[in-house]
């Protein structure tokens, strides 16, 4: 069976001035993968996300999604294609309620025109109600339905991270990119998060690419791991191989004495 990969990075490179943040990175994701992207600080992980989601245009190399070249396509088009992300430094719509944050994600698939919205025609009302219901369902998945009407800025940190996931899920992506979803969480919250990620993959049938610092978390969650250091690939494979890979150990712990 030779199904084409869902996402393929082909020698993606991006340069800011003299700094090559991502250097010739290539990897492939198949549908249903739970793929981890790890590396020390400044390795270029988030920049990878940024070039996949169209925040930056790669200097060279290509990115294919479902076989189509999406390098340099604007962010909002990429979200429509079916890739959505969360942010390392949480970027919620702070003044909006938790529910509204998720509805913004769902609005991507809206069908009524702006005119219906401005005149509040029945189809716009119906669509708004529908989007709200869908958003509520997602909030239940991430255990946030009880705070649906709170201002999102007022939520504690862990909840904000989960809300970001729900918001991204609302765009109905095929590929979900999670940027350090477990950062700043305590062990119990991390376990809950793990459950959520599994549910997203299994129940909602999504492919997940995540960046994480917590090795234990990634090793326990991901089926394949890609290790970046200073923009370059240093390892790629299942968790067991990564764990014992000397280059990875060196990148994280420095050279053995």
């Amino acid at each position, binding site marked *: 069976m030779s199904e084409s990969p869902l996402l393929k990075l082909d020698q993606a490179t991006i340069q800011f001035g003299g700094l090559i943040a991502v250097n010739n990175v290539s990897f492939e994701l198949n549908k249903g993968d739970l793929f981890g992207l790890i590396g020390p600080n400044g390795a270029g992980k988030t920049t990878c996300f940024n070039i996949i*989601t169209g925040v930056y245009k790669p200097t060279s190399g290509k990115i294919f999604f479902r076989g189509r070249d999406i390098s340099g396509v604007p962010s909002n088009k990429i979200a429509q294609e079916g890739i959505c992300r969360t942010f390392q430094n949480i970027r*919620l719509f*702070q*003044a*909006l309620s938790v529910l509204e944050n998720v*509805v913004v994600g769902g609005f991507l698939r809206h069908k009524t025109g702006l005119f219906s*919205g401005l005149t*509040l025609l029945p189809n716009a009302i119906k669509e708004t109600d529908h989007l709200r219901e869908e958003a509520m369902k997602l909030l239940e998945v991430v255990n946030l339905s009880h705070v649906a009407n709170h201002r999102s800025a007022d939520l504690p940190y862990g909840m904000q991270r989960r809300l970001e996931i729900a918001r*991204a899920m609302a765009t109905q992506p095929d590929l979900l990119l999670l940027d350090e979803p477990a950062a700043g969480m305590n062990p119990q919250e991390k376990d809950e998060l793990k459950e959520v990620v599994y549910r997203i993959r299994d129940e909602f049938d999504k492919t997940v690419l995540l960046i994480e610092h917590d090795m234990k978390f990634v090793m326990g969650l991901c089926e394949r791991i890609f290790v970046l250091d200073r923009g370059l690939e240093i390892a790629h494979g299942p968790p067991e191989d990564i764990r014992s890979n000397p280059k990875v150990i060196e990148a994280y712990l420095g050279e053995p004495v």
Partner: protein
Amino acid sequence: MGKFWTVRIASVVAALAGCFIFQTVATNLGNDYYLRLFLLAGLYVTLSVSLNLINGITGQFSIGHAAFYMIGAYTAGILTRAYYEQQPLLPELWLVIMMLAGGLFAALAGLLVGLPSLRLKGDYLAIVTLGFGEIIRIVATNQQSVGGSYGFSFGPKVVAPWMVCLLAIITIAICRNLLKSAHGLPFLAVREDEIAASAMGVNVTKTKVAAFVLGSALAGAAGAILALNEGYLNPDIFKMDVSFLILTMVVLGGTGSITGSALAAIFLFLTIEIPRNIQTADGQKVQITLASLLMAGLAIAIAISLLRKIKDHFHGPPNQRLIRNLGVIGGSIAGAIVLSMILNATTVMGDKTFEFDKLRMVILSIMLLVVMLLRPQGVLAHHEFSWDFVKRLFRKDHDDKAEVAS
């Protein structure tokens, strides 16, 4: 007929009734001057709410709204002068056509200004919108075909208070509908975080341009009403001050709050217009002594600093806080009156007088500063008028009793 249509028809009827009342009140003011004030206040509601769409809801820092108002007005003026004679229509119908034309041209200008906003943010955008307003005004000042700085007149004058009211209602309805439906969320999302909005699939470009086009079109329609109401236009009507006034209305009412913008528009407009006409019984201009002026200033300064102290450092129950606030306000007013009465008896400060109507802009600026220093999020902050709130207000004592009983 479902619930939707019942509600919709009811609101349209209510709106028309509102216009009718407005019309009746306006025509019974019995004084052309007051009629004009009444109409202008209505136009400022449209201007302020439409700027709120750009500034408050979409978060695009536009501070040159008078430009779109002016474009609408000049479009209507020029077209009326050129074509009305050849095609005499029912004046009201002509007004509607002019509103559409003014709105259209202002929308095109909005598109023109909206486009740079794709690249510019915050203060940079602000200064570009301000500059755009100035350019338009200077160009008009130098066009002899529209009378340059002396302006030009045209006929017929169409005084239609109901149309002023209708436009204000339409503007408010559009903004409110936008916020009620999911279509408003992309606008809010762009305000909150452009990058995240874009990552969620919001077309940031389209949203910003839509806000600019819509907001400008409404201001343009208001301009057309102004033009036909006055029958005369000149560039000085649309100076930078007008832009600042509209912006002040938005901010004072609470950025993003439609109710706030609308109420602040009426309130502020009256604050600067009414003092113009206050007269003593024998038709003299009201004079105010230097002593009273200085004491009023002193009282305001002291009251602000005390109120800020209470706001920041007092953590007691709300009613205690209210009592303290009222105490400060009452105390400073009383103190100012007593002190100024004493000082008025002296020759230096009691003899020098100023005309009260010259103070109106000073009062406006002080009010602005007071609100900003005490409640920077605006009087209504992000709150909106809602029937639920009214219901709660009336039920309040009810609930209190219930609480006491239980």
